[in-house]
């Protein structure tokens, strides 16, 4: 059997598992970890990291986006870093938003 690929297994720390004394495989492992019951206050993240979803639905967001773009003064376009993609994009989103309309 060609074992061209079996072997040369990666090693992060050669010591890991080096002293493993395997259980009798018919007797399952009985090591049980401690059950964690946090009582500290840091189970609550900083206030700005309580994340919610944008309330605006996709259609409205795209309509606003388009109207923003129409209102934008023309010279702003030259400041845009990726003008080519930017010009393509409203068309794509326009097509998809029309799909949403009845």
């Amino acid at each position, binding site marked *: *059997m*060609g*074992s*061209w*690929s*079996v*072997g040369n*297994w*990666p*090693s*992060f*720390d*050669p*010591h*890991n*598992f*080096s*002293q*493993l*004394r*395997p*259980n009798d*495989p*018919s*007797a*399952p*492992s*009985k*090591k*049980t*970890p*401690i*059950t*964690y*019951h*946090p*009582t*500290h206050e*840091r*189970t*609550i*993240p900083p206030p*700005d*990291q*309580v*994340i*919610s*979803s*944008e309330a605006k*639905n*996709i259609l409205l*967001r*795209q309509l606003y*986006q388009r109207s923003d773009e129409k209102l934008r003064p023309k010279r702003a376009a030259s400041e845009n870093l990726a003008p080519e*993609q930017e010009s393509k*994009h409203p068309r*794509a*989103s326009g097509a*998809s938003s029309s799909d*949403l309309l009845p």
Partner: protein
Amino acid sequence: MSTYNYVVTAHKPTNVTHSCVGNFTGPQELNLIIAKCTRIEIHLLTPQGLQPMLDVPIYGRIATLELFRPHGETQDLLFIATERYKFCVLQWDADTNEVITRAMGDVSDRIGRPTDNGQIGIIDPDCRLIGLHLYDGLFKVIPFDNKGQLKEAFNIRLEELQVLDIKFLYGCPKPTIVVLYQDNKDARHVKTYEVSLKDKDFVEGPWSQNNLDNGADLLIPVPPPFCGVLIIGEETIVYCSASAFKAIPIRPSITRAYGRVDADGSRYLLGDHSGLLHLLVIAHEKEKVTGLKIELLGETSIASTISYLDNAFVYVGSSYGDSQLIKLNLQPDAKGSYVEVLERYVNLGPIVDFCVVDLERQGQGQVVTCSGAFKDGSLRIVRNGIGINEQASVELQGIKGMWSLRSATDDLYDTFLVVSFISETRILAMNLEDELEETEIEGFCSQVQTLFCHDAVHNQLVQVTSSSVRLVSSTSRELRHEWHAPADYSINVATANATQVLLATRGGHLVYLEIGDGVLVEKKHAQLKYDISCLDINPIGENPNFSNLAAVGMWTDISVRIFSLPDLNLITEEHLGGEIIPRSVLLCAFEGIPYLLCALGDGHLLNFLLNTTTGGLTDRKKVSLGTQPITLRTFSSKNTTHVFAASDRPTVIYSSNKKLLYSNVNLKEVSHMCPFNSAAFPDSLAIAKEGELTIGTIDDIQKLHIRSIPLGEHARRICHQEQSRTFAICSLKYNQSSTEDSEMHFIRLLDDQTFDFISTYSLDQFEYGCSILNCSFSDDSNAYYCVGTAYVMPEENEPTKGRILVFMVEDGKLQLVAEKETKGAVYSLNAFNGKLLAAINQKIQLYKWMLRDDGTRELQSECGHHGHILALYVQTRGDFIVVGDLMKSISLLIYKHEEGAIEERARDYNANWMSAVEILDDDIYLGAENNYNLFTVRKNSEGATDEERGRLEVVGEYHLGEFVNRFRHGSLVMRLPDSDVGQIPTIIFGTVNGVIGVIASLPQDQYVFMEKLQTNLRKVIKGVGGLSHEQWRSFYSEKKTVDSRNFLDGDLIESFLDLGRTRMEEISKTMNVSVEELMKRVEELTRLH
């Protein structure tokens, strides 16, 4: 009334759903993190193997588990998303060893159709965003800012509605996903999209690939340098990128799990549906992919997740069998396998069915589960408490005490067993034939009761009787010295170790002796105010032969006192309160922590932390072990010291993770116990019980014992028959051949002791065993196994044909005595009024057991009831029938004898899709449904109108978070009729995740008390990741979410016992109940499971 229910886990989930490896607890520490549906386990990779660190309950069912590392971090963060649309980002704080929450949030949408193929959560490899696919047609993005902080989430419309998998591609300048989807012609394709965070929209991606394998189901993104993606199908594996397309055919299989081996993504472990492990290799030349290769490595449990750990070790997590730690060897073994299984981690899931039996006839229930699936199917015998495996026993009445002695100080084994009676002492010893026979120790006084015995230094033995202390040579067995108690001061209690003797005489005199070579020296004497009830000088300091402390229990003032030795100075006095005297005290150390245990005459046990320097006693705790006086003794098992509490409810006290635990011993009543480690019976205990002396070995010290009976096939139904001492199961075996997969269904008969198959009945082709029952009929006392089946034809939506088979066990064989054809699947069978009640598709049907003229028997239809979608689960009580419907919740039927008819009495009009039902009492019925909720309904017999009486009122609701397959009345623990918990009715349930749980119906006052405790605990024990316990336990379905009511979370309540003292005191203060009382009441509940 069983309105007030307490739900608690007896066996935690073991079904491993996710796993990942990374540096979570420290930059240099490599961790394996495992998800078991509602819990995560953090392990550390060490030279000794996987070291479990923490079991973290999560208030949600885990849908996604991913480790990731934002820019600038030195260790990984853990992203968890739950099925109820919550997510959190967790971080390990090494300074405090706490899990802290970096971020959390709610990603639910008000409108949206939940995905059919499960939730997908992925993190961009460059940590620019988290992507979630939770609803059809929507892709949710949680962007990261450049500091690694999360920002407001938004949705992007995804055109593909039938998504099978989504992954992020590596090495893309813009975050790019690859989507595997099925079109409306059932063809499968992949497509890529760039996520434009600025426009909050997709941009067409760099490539796509149409018309893939029809079974393509899994994407594996390939890291640099190759990048691209592997598409795993059932017949092909494809590598796809913007520049390359390589494919190989594979043996038909469904890949369930993969694990990346090399950081460069050149090798992957693939686990398939039959448990075969393959290695997939990306062949390459200088970063250019040239092809794919696949090699079979061997067989494992059917994997649900695979994580390469380190140095050729791999973790295989399984949903259908035990999870495993395997090693990939360099050379194949004789069978050609590179896989070596080194450790096994028990998994009971999925528990499809179970029964509660008392196999050892000890009055204690054992649960026998149908566990696992496919080739990993098994039966598991789950038993609470610690068993004694009897080696030898003799009838001996009136034992008052027992001690084992060695014949030389250095002997490894005990030789003598001293057994004391009211007016004599007998010595037993092992003879040359390894039999226990009576012998003599000449120097001992055998005409009186012995109060205490011990081995002493210099090959000596000590015997204490009411009049003297005798020091005897263990080799010549002759008396070397004797200390006499003063006349009129008989010795009441005594204790000793290898060098010290402490005894108490009438009148409160405490005498301390030391043992020399052939001499007993009275060192100290003290006069106490009251008589002494018990004492102990078990050495727990550095010197194993000498104790610096003595513990003394007192009559009259009901106290324990600690004296220093050898000067016998009183250093601590602790009043116990109450009127019950201490009967046994013990100094002992568990996991290096010294304790004083003090057992009272009424079966209560107090324990204190002991300061060995000052003798100070702190952290007093009280538990109720039994109702009779307790005698405490230490013993060793597997090099660890434990304490045996002999009483009417024998208990082993042990310590795990520095917490004292109490485990029942599966014996009815034990008056005395002493360790007896003889050459013939190593590591044994001598146990005096009910007029009998037994020598036996003790099980491993743990609460639940699980024995596995691998079947190699999938058991789906089980029941036990007492008369024939057998189990019968419905099972199925999958046969995989290269051409076609087929399955065969059997009814198997198993011996209930050996669990060997002793008889098999093969069902017809396409015939499934759906239900099984042990019953007898009116006018026929024989025990029968009844089996309900269904012919599952590929072209039918619902079975239209089935059978009821009636078997008798004769000479260990299944004999078919009757069979009856049915017009559908027999989903349930019940013994009912001496007849057989069957649930057949939408109908409930009652059969009589009729005697034919020729003396044979047949099932004859009597009456029935239509009106269900599918009547899946049926329970009966008297003439009442409770039906759990596929989608119409619970209904109540009644059998009318006179009319010979079954009528509907009431129903619950909610649209619950049921998974199990049970009758709690005459009026309250329990249901489990497929959104992982429990609920109770009440019959309203006193309703004013027909409409009211016809409605089952929902009285309890609770989110269990587990899919329950079966409820059964019964208990895992031996119930003492005179104890408080002995009065509490319990139901056991089994779930898909392998959970065994208990639902206990509490008296109202106890419920109210525990509800208050639960409310307070919610404030103190915080949900990991900021998840709310209240929300987690709220009844949740697509239609409604309502607060839980009339169910309590026993797991939360019992975690009170794990709290630190200050937190307990906080709760004690707000509840205005002492810590001791709270602990005692919670401890009592832990004894329900």
